[in-house]
């Protein structure tokens, strides 16, 4: 489905398929993204959350590798242990992108590749996109007051190059390409995993009927989304906007009514 704010000439929608089942947690994507996009450091904190000292996506982290250590028991071996879940998170480049819809300046726009990008020369730092994103992706960079996030390497795409993270990923956990192709490939991969007995494998964001109209950057996960810090049923806030304006109209009329009633007598 074309987005109303989409580009005039429809082109193939490009995106990411992040197959977390083959992520080895090397963080090459995090590093490649920082290097290519010249993203400043985001502090060096010891978070004590497994091998993850990055924490999450932010203005200065556009790819983030989550490390989940899950205690498991393997009855066949009579042993307890842990299993590792690793997943490289990124901006979802939503079909219905809340950040873009609430942006009052038009700084956030949809590119010819159907990705969502901030025009840094227009952003005035109003901050509205920050709490609007249902994934907590976009954020303000304190040092300069504007918001930053993954551009899906807009500059590289324009030069027919794949995004830096996908290029650097040694296992092809991050795949870049036309979204239709990626979705077909993901469905095949999910089928193979299910057949191999990985019952909890699931696609996240590949469904166009979800609350944000599907992601341009979707995932294959091995557990519930919330285990990776992702919302299980994200909804673009503007879906409810007509209802909000109706409530506001009712409230505005209530104000007029109250004032009229209060002034029914002159004094």
């Amino acid at each position, binding site marked *: 489905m074309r987005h109303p704010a989409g580009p005039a000439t429809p082109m193939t929608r490009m995106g990411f398929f992040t197959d977390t089942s083959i992520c080895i947690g090397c963080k090459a994507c995090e590093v490649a993204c920082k290097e290519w996009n010249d993203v400043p450091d985001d502090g060096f904190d010891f978070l004590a959350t497994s091998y993850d000292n990055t924490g999450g996506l932010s203005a200065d982290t556009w790819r983030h590798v989550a490390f989940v250590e899950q205690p*498991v028991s393997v009855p066949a071996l009579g042993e307890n242990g842990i299993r590792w879940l690793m997943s490289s998170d990124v901006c979802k480049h939503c079909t219905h992108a809340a950040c873009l819809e*609430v942006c009052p300046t038009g700084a956030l726009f949809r590119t010819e590749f159907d990705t969502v990008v901030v025009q840094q020369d227009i952003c*005035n730092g109003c901050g509205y996109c*920050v709490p609007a994103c249902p994934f907590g992706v976009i954020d303000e960079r304190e040092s300069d007051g504007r918001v930053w996030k993954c551009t899906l390497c807009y500059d590289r795409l324009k030069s027919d190059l794949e995004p830096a993270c996908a290029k650097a990923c040694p296992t092809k956990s991050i795949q870049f390409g036309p979204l239709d192709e990626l979705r077909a490939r993901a469905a095949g991969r999910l089928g193979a995993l299910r057949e191999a007995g990985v019952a909890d494998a*699931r696609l996240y964001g590949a469904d166009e009927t979800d609350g944000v109209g599907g992601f341009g950057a979707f995932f294959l996960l091995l557990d519930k989304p919330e285990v990776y*810090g992702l919302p299980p049923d*994200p909804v673009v*806030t503007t879906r409810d906007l007509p209802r909000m304006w109706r409530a506001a109209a009712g409230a505005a009329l209530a104000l007029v009514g*109250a004032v009229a009633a209060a*002034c029914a007598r002159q004094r």
Partner: protein
Amino acid sequence: MRPTKVTGYYGRPVLKAPVWKSAIPLYFFTGGVAGASSTLAFAAGLRGNRRLARSAMLASVAGVAASGPLLVIDLGKPSRFLNMLRVAKPTSPMSVGSWVLTAFAPASMAAAASDVTGRLPRLGRVAAGAGAVLGPVVATYTAVLVANTAIPAWHDAHRELPFLFVGSAAASAAGIAMIATPVADAGPARRLAMMGAALELGAFRAMESRLDEAVAGPYMHGRAGRLAKAAEACSATGAVLAVTAGRRRRRAAVTAGALLCAGSLLTRFSVFRAGIESAADPAATIDPQRRRVDGRGTVGA
């Protein structure tokens, strides 16, 4: 192999907290005063209550004058504030609000200028009328602005927040009018104070009881909850005082007006703070969504 259940990712927030500072809830207050005062001024003027109309007009101008700087300071790039008028976007309440304010501010100022100087009375009346129509929009759109985010305590309260904000705006505008108008002329302001405070308190209660329990928390406990309790106490006392001793004694009327303003201001800060606390709580985001998914019974997510 059965993984043990872990909720969330190391308890980290799913959402990003708003980067807005206290200038924003302050603006919700000043914008509310400006909007509701314009409507009150127009109605009082129509009924021939010149004293009340005059003080409400001046309150509106004061609200407008305070609002502009508050909005500009809070931008990350204040020098680019004019970019707000680069596009008009109905999906962005902030864009809608910027345009409405751009029309409302000159109307409010022109109406007051004409009233005070006695010049251009016809233009003054048109401006006052425009202010009266746009005022309720100025007082309400800020509720839609916060509701139109992913933050559960704001988004899920989208039905009640506009009524809460309008009640709060009416109470504060009425409070200021009572402070600035002789008791004999302030009857409409006292009645508006009563209705505004009732709406404010009623909408807050309705919101608390309708919200999912994973979401309502901040409004009831912690810092936002304490602000809400203080707001309620101030608004209720102010409203009662307004329609009792405030009808006779100026000193009581001024105290009541100040309490109503304090209540309104505290309400705005409580809602603002609740949003920040809600964004920081992964359960407020995840739990209702998880129940929704499980309720649908689909595979997928």
